[in-house]
C-alpha cells in the first residue's frame, strides 16, 4: 500500500506562550483521506497544535502546509477558507442562537456560496437530531446534541481537513459511539481528519495512525494494532 499524498503537514512546529514552550519541534503529517489521531496527557500541546494550524496562535518556528502550500501566519478566517475547519474543545456552541443560526455561521467559512443548501442538508442527514432541533436555542440541547451541532457547523464549510479537539469529552458512552460513527462517515465522504482525543485506546484503534505527544514533543507513532497492546499504550503515556 502506498502512502496517500500529504494533505496537512507540520514541520518543526514551535509554539511558545511567553517564554514557556507549548509545542517543541513537532513534525506531523496527515495524508489525504486519512484519519490521524493525536493523543497525550493534559498540557501536552495538543490543543495548541490545533490552534496553531488554525492561525489562532502564532508559531515561533516551523511551518504548516496544506496541500503543499504554507498557511503559516494566516488569520483563522483565511485558514478556514483555505479548507481547514475546527471543532473546538468544549464545542463552543453559540448557546443564545438557534441551531440553524449556528449552522449558518459555519457557512461563513465556505470557499463558495454555491452548494451551501446542499451542505446543510448533508449535515441534517448525518445528524437527524440537528435537523429536528434546528429552530431551538442551541443552549437547550444536550451535550451530545451540541457536539453533533459543533461537528455539523464545521462541516457545512465543506473543509478538506477537519480538526477535532476532544469531541468525546464529557459525553455518555452511547453518544461517544455516535460521534465516532459520524467521523467514519465523514472520512468516507473524503474529508481528511486530525483527531485530538483523551480516549487513547479508542483513538488508536480507530485512526489510521496515532501520534503520541508529551511536553510538546512527538513521543511515538502508534498503529491500530497497538490499541490492544497495553504495554505500548502505557509506555506511550508515561515514557519508556
Amino acid at each position, binding site marked *: 500500500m502506498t502512502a496517500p499524498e500529504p494533505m496537512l503537514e507540520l514541520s518543526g512546529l514551535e509554539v511558545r506562550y511567553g517564554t514557556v514552550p507549548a509545542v517543541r519541534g513537532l513534525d506531523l503529517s496527515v495524508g489525504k483521506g486519512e484519519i490521524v489521531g493525536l493523543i497525550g496527557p493534559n498540557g501536552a500541546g495538543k490543543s495548541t497544535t490545533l490552534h496553531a494550524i488554525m492561525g489562532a496562535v502564532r508559531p515561533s518556528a516551523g511551518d504548516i502546509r496544506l496541500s503543499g502550500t504554507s498557511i503559516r501566519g494566516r488569520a*483563522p478566517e483565511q485558514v478556514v477558507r483555505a479548507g481547514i475547519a475546527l471543532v473546538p474543545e468544549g464545542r463552543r456552541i*453559540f448557546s*443564545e*442562537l438557534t441551531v440553524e443560526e449556528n449552522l449558518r*455561521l*459555519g457557512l*461563513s467559512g465556505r470557499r463558495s456560496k454555491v452548494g451551501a443548501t446542499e451542505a446543510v442538508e448533508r449535515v441534517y442527514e448525518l445528524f437527524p437530531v440537528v435537523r429536528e432541533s434546528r429552530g431551538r436555542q442551541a443552549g437547550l440541547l444536550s451535550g451530545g446534541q451540541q457536539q453533533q451541532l459543533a461537528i455539523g457547523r464545521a462541516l457545512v*464549510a465543506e473543509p478538506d481537513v477537519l480538526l477535532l479537539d476532544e469531541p468525546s469529552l464529557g459525553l455518555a458512552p452511547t453518544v461517544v459511539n455516535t460521534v465516532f460513527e459520524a467521523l467514519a462517515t465523514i472520512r468516507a465522504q473524503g474529508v481528511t481528519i486530525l483527531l485530538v482525543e483523551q480516549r487513547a485506546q479508542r483513538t488508536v484503534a480507530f485512526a489510521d495512525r496515532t501520534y503520541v505527544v508529551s511536553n510538546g514533543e512527538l513521543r511515538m507513532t502508534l498503529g491500530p494494532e497497538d490499541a490492544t497492546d497495553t504495554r505500548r499504550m502505557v509506555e506511550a503515556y508515561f515514557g519508556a
Partner: protein
Amino acid sequence: MTDDVQTLVDAIALGSIYALMAVGIGLVFGVLRLVNFAYGQLIMAGAYALALTNDSPVLLSIALCFGVVLALSVALEFAAFRPLRGASPTTMLVATFAISYLLQSIALVRFGAIGKIVVVIPKLSEPVTIGSVHIRWITLVTILVAIGVFAALTLLLTRTTIGLQMRAASIDAETARLLGVRANAVITAAVLVSGVIAAIAAVILPMAVPERVLVSPDYALRETIIVLVGVVVGGIDRLLSATLGGFTMGFAVGMFSGYLPSTGAWPFTSSVYLDSAVFMLVILVLLLRPEGLFARGRRTAVERL
C-alpha cells in the same frame, strides 16, 4: 395633568435619543469590547456639518452630516481602533478619551469656543395640540425615528448574515473567527451602523433639545457621559439591556427636569438638583442591582467594565 403628560412625552423623547446613542455605543462595544468615549464627538462633527450648511437645502445639509459622521467613523476605525486590536479594554477606553479631546481641540481651533446655531427643519419645532396637550412635532418625530431605527436594527441583526455574524462576534469573537467570520468586516459594519445612528442623533439633537441648538466643541459630551453611565447601569454586554439603560437615563433626566425645582429653562443645566438626582439613582441601582438593571448575568457592572 396636562403638564404631567407633556413632561412624560418629553421624557420619552429624551429617553429615545439617549437610547439611540446607547445602541450606537453598544454595537461597537459588542464586537470590539471598546467603550467609545468619543461617540459624542461624532455627533458634534455631524452637528457642525449641519450648522455650517444652514443656508443649503435641508436634504443636502443632512446628507453632508451623514457623510461627515460616517467618514469620521471609518477614519477612527482605521487610524485608531484597528491598530489597537487585541489591546486591553482599558487601553482602548483611554485611547477614545484621547480621540474625544483631540476632536474637541480641533473643533475649538477651527470653529472657536462660541457656539454656532444649528438650523435643520424649523417647522418641526412648532407645537402640535392633541387635546389640551401641546407637544412639539420634533418630540413625536424623535420617538418615531427611534422606533424606526430599533426596528431596522432588529431586522439587520436577526435577518441578515452580517447581522448574525455581528451577534456571534459579540458573544464569542474568537469562535466566530474560527468559523470563518471575517472579524474586520464585522467590525467595520458595526462601526458604520453605529456611525449612521450617531448621524441620526446629530440631526435630531439640535431640534429636540433646545439647549443643544448651539454646537460647540464639547457638544453632546454631557449626553455621552450620561449615556455611558446608563449603558453600564443597564448592562453593557447585551445590546438590549444597554439600550434600555440609555433610555432609562434619558427618561430619568426628562422626568427630573420636569419636576425638580428649576432656576430656568428646560431641560438640564438650569435644574440645580438634576445631576445629583440622576447620579443618586445610579448609585441606588448599583447598590440594589450591581449586575445591571436589565442584565441577566450575575457579574457586577464594575466587573463588566
